[in-house]
């Protein structure tokens, strides 16, 4: 089924997730221009880009950022406007995985940081 879909793809193939070191690299490269958030159809409430980047890297995740992370449906609209060529969708996926792992039994909240 996957091969059939791959043959059908008209535009570029879908990009999979990025590992933690690449996400950290991209977060550090972010210039904070906000273009990705302005282009996002899933963002319902104002969130500052520095808060988003900080909470993606490490530490506890605030309620608005968590809601945004859950609402993100990986449409990729945030990739094209980025002047630095970063992948905000991969960073959001990292946030999703952190949220998912935080719900595991015995998990430490705010764990799996990209930086200590």
């Amino acid at each position, binding site marked *: 089924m996957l091969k059939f879909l791959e043959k*059908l793809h008209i535009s570029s193939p879908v990009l999979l*997730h990025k590992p933690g070191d690449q996400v950290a690299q991209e977060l550090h490269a972010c210039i904070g221009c906000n273009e990705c*958030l302005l282009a996002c159809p899933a963002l319902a409430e*104002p969130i500052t880009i520095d808060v988003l980047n900080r909470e993606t890297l490490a530490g506890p995740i*605030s309620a608005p950022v968590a*809601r945004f992370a859950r609402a993100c*449906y990986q449409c990729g609209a945030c990739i094209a406007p980025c002047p630095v060529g970063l992948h905000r969708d991969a960073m959001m996926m990292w946030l*999703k995985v952190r949220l998912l792992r935080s719900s595991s039994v015995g998990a430490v909240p705010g764990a799996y940081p990209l930086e200590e």
Partner: protein
Amino acid sequence: MNDPTGEKGYPLLFFSINTKWKIGALLTFLVLAISAGFYVWYSQHSSDAAPDSIAGYSYAILGTASLLLAGTLYSIRRRSHKKRALGKLNTALHWHIFFAIIGLVLIFMHSFGNLNPRTGTYALYGLIALVISGLVGRTLDHLIPRLIAGEVQQALTARGEDRIETISQKVQALVAHNTEALSSQPIAVNFADFSSRKQQVMQHRPQTSLEYEEDERPLHTPWDLAYISLEATPQELSRLMPDKHRPLTPSAALMPGAQQHLVELHKVQRAMQREHFYRYIIRYWRLLHIALALLTLGLITWHLIYAAQLLLH
């Protein structure tokens, strides 16, 4: 009050009701209630309950206007280079959903229950399919990223590293360790030693008629002459793995723990394949929604031309 430990969890079925959602739901309910109320009143008090009655035309005009707004507002807003505030695109998406649902209900009321096989009925069916595809798409957008996150979790280690790379390194270390145990000579685990040994073999090869470059590397070295050592290399995993077809494989070649690593590697690969598949679902459902929109637009245009012809003649 904010929890100092932060938000936790990512349930499969989550729902957050914000002000925008409440306003949208209230507005939708209000418009539907007014339309339904008028529909019931008109059906009971008028003998001309038909798509081409005054009420029918009113519903048709309002429904078409609503559908036009649904089809254009969000697309224009998304492509506009005008500076917008954060969250405005999400608001535009909610309006898109609102106008689409209202448009469908108004067009349905415009039919006044006449579902004969005419152009209007086909347009209505197309519209129903379009709105349903939109609602299913919203549900998929809700569920599938959560499923993708579950697969990504499997593909990453606890520290967020690529699990395939980690497993490959472990397997390579196992092969190196076992190969060292099999032969007394230490083997090269990096490519620098590998290429230096290759050069040693090349020096002792008989001369051929091949042309050589200045540094004595042949220009067209056949692949089978590239390396002719009989020693096991780190890449030749199959010679060291237990092979069911070769019962004479010495038991010393079995790598304890390698099978578990390979099983884990297979699981991670399957997780990545599923992630790939889920991402394609999101992409292609969007394409389906756009295709249905174009089809519905064509059917509505056909119906409008047909209705105009009826009016003019």
